[in-house]
C-alpha cells in the first residue's frame, strides 16, 4: 500500500469519525431546539394577535370560532390561546414539561400517574387535567386530602384553566403555557 493511500485513509477516517460526532450533536440540537419552532410560531401568532387587538370584533369572533374549526384528537391546539404544554414551575419536578395532545393528564403520588408527584401533601390520585369537548382544558380535583388550588381558590368542581394560571398541589405548582 502506498504511503499516500494510507495517509488519505488515516485522515479520512478521522474526518468520518468527527462527522459522526457532529451529526449526533445535530440530532441533539434538533431534539433540544425542536420547541423553538413553536416559539417562533407562537410569536408570529402573538404578533397577529396584536394586530387583531386593534379590531376587537375580530378577536371576539376568533374566540367564538374555535369549537367549529377544531379537529378531534389533540384538537385544542388549533384554538387561539390554546395551551400546548404543561410546565411544572415549583416543587421537586420543577422544569418538567408535558406536551398537551388532547390526552388526560393525571397527577398524584401513584406510580401510574402521568406526573408522579413526590410530595407528602399530595394524594395518590390527586387531580386530573383534561380537555373538554370544546378543547378547553379543565382541572378536576379527584377528592384529594389537601385539595387542588387554581390561583388562590380551592377547587370544588371541574374548572377551566386559563393560560399561566398556577395550579397548586401540595408543594408543586404547575401551569399551562403556549
Amino acid at each position: 500500500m502506498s504511503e499516500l493511500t494510507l495517509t488519505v485513509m488515516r485522515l479520512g477516517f478521522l474526518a468520518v469519525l468527527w462527522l459522526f460526532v457532529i451529526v449526533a450533536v445535530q440530532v441533539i440540537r434538533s431534539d433540544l431546539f425542536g420547541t423553538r419552532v413553536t416559539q417562533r410560531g407562537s410569536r408570529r401568532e402573538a404578533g397577529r394577535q396584536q394586530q387583531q387587538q386593534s379590531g376587537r370584533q375580530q378577536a371576539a369572533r376568533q374566540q367564538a370560532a374555535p369549537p367549529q374549526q377544531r379537529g378531534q384528537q389533540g384538537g385544542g391546539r388549533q384554538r387561539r390561546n390554546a395551551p400546548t404544554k404543561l410546565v411544572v414551575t415549583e416543587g421537586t419536578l420543577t422544569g418538567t414539561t408535558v406536551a398537551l395532545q388532547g390526552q388526560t393528564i393525571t397527577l398524584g403520588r401513584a406510580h401510574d400517574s402521568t406526573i408522579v408527584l413526590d410530595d407528602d401533601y399530595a394524594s395518590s390520585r390527586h387531580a386530573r387535567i383534561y380537555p373538554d369537548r370544546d378543547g378547553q382544558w379543565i382541572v378536576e380535583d379527584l377528592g384529594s386530602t389537601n385539595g387542588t388550588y387554581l390561583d388562590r381558590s380551592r377547587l370544588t368542581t371541574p374548572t377551566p384553566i386559563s393560560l399561566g394560571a398556577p395550579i397548586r398541589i401540595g408543594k408543586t405548582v404547575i401551569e399551562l403555557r403556549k
Partner: protein
Amino acid sequence: MSSTSNSPTHHTSTIGAIGAPSRRNTELALLVFAVVIPVFAYANVGLALSGEVPTGLLSYGLGLGLLAGVAHLGVRKFAPYADPLLLPLATLLNGLGLVCIWRLDQSKLLQSLPNFVTAAPRQLLYTALGIAMFVAVLFFLKDHRVLQRYTYISMFGALVLLILPLVPGLGADIYGAKIWIRVPGLGSLQPGEFAKIVLAVFFAGYLMVKRDALALASRRFMGLYLPRGRDLGPILVVWAMSILILVFETDLGTSLLFFGMFVIMLYVATERTSWIVFGLLMSAVGAVGVASFESHIQTRVHAWLDPMREYKLSQAGVQDGTLHSEQAMQALWAFGSGGTMGTGWGQGHSDLIKFAANSDFILATFGEELGLAGVMAILLIYGLIVERGVRTALAARDPFGKLLAIGLSGAFALQVFVVAGGVMGLIPLTGMTMPFVAYGGSSVLANWALIGILIRISDTARRPAPTPASNPDAEMTQVVRPS
C-alpha cells in the same frame, strides 16, 4: 378565520416536535453510519498491515450490521419513543473496540506471548450476547418503575455479587485483583460490572424514600449542612463497603465507582453541596488509608507518581519485593507517538504494552493510531452517551426514573473517567475496562444492559402521556376521603 387557515399544518409540525416524535428513522440512519465507520476502520487495518482488504470484511460488516439491526428492531418494537442517540453511539464504540481488538490480534509480538488468545471472535460473541441482553432488558422490563419494588432485594443482590469473588473456589485472582469468578465451562465473569447496575437500582429506590430526611433534617455548620447521625448511616455503610472491596479485592476502580455513584445520586436527590464535600473527603481518607498498607495499590500509586522510574526499575529487573510496572510509561509513550493525527490504523506499536493491551490499555492503542483527534472524538462519544442519560433523567416524569437514570449515567461517566484518567496518567491506574471498547465479556454485557435500562427510561419519559384506560368515575370511588 382567514388568518388561521394556513396555521394548522404549521401547528401540527411544531406540536409534533414538542410531543417527541419517535425518531426511530433518525436512529436507523445514525446506526447505519455507526456500522459503516468500524467497517471502514477494519478495511483500513487490513490495508495497512498486509496491503489488502481483509478477507473477513464482509462477514464482519454483516455481523455487526445484523447485531445493530436486531437491536434497532428491538427498540422499534419495545421502546418506540426511546432516545435516538444511545443505541448508535454504543454501537459505534462497540464496533471500534472490535476493530481495535482484531488489530491487536494481528500483532506478531502479542501472538508470541505464552497466554495469547485470538480475542476478536470472542469479543464478537460477547457483543452478540450483549445485544441479546439489551433486547431482553427491553422485552422484560416494560416499565422501569417495576424495579422500585426490588429496592432492598437489589441491595442484597449487589452485596452477594460483590462478595462472590471472595468465595474460595469460586473467585479467581488475576494480575493481583480478585474481581473475577470462575464459571465452569464458561470462563471467568466479573460480577462487579453487574453490581453497578443493581446497586444503582437500590440507591435510586432508597434515596427516593429518604431524600427529604437527608435534605431537610440537618444542622448548619460553617456554611455546610450537617446531616443527622442516623441519616448519615447509609452513606457510612456504603463507604465502609467500598473500602472493604478495596481491601479484600484490591480493586481501586470498582470501589471508587460505587462510592462516586452514591455521592452523585445523593447530591441529585438532596441538592445539598455538603454531600459532595463529605464524599470527596471520605473517599480521600479511605484511599490514602488503604494505599498506605496495601501493596497492590502502592504499586499503582508509584507507577502513577513516577512512571519513568518504575519503567527503568522494571527493565533492570530489580527484585525488591514489589512489582514494578512498565505499562504506565508505555501507555504514555503510545499517546506521545500518536501525536495530533495519529499514525493511522495498524501502524502504531501499542502492542509493546503486551498483556492488557486490548483490555485496560486499549485507549492507548486508540491514542497512538488515531492520535489526539481520534481520542477526543471517542471521549466525546462517551460524553454524548452520558449527556443523553442525564437528559433522560431530566425528562423523566417520576423521581425513581430520574434518580436511576442519573445513577447509571453517572456510573458510566465515572468509569470512563477512571479508566481514561488512569491510562493517561492523571490518576493512579485502576483495573477497570473502558465501557464497550475494551475486551471483556462481563463489561460488554453489563454495559449493554445499562444502555437498555436507559433506553427504557427515555422511552417512558418521551412517550406522549397515555390516556388512563380506566373510567374516571371508577377512579373517583377509589379515593378515600379522610375529612
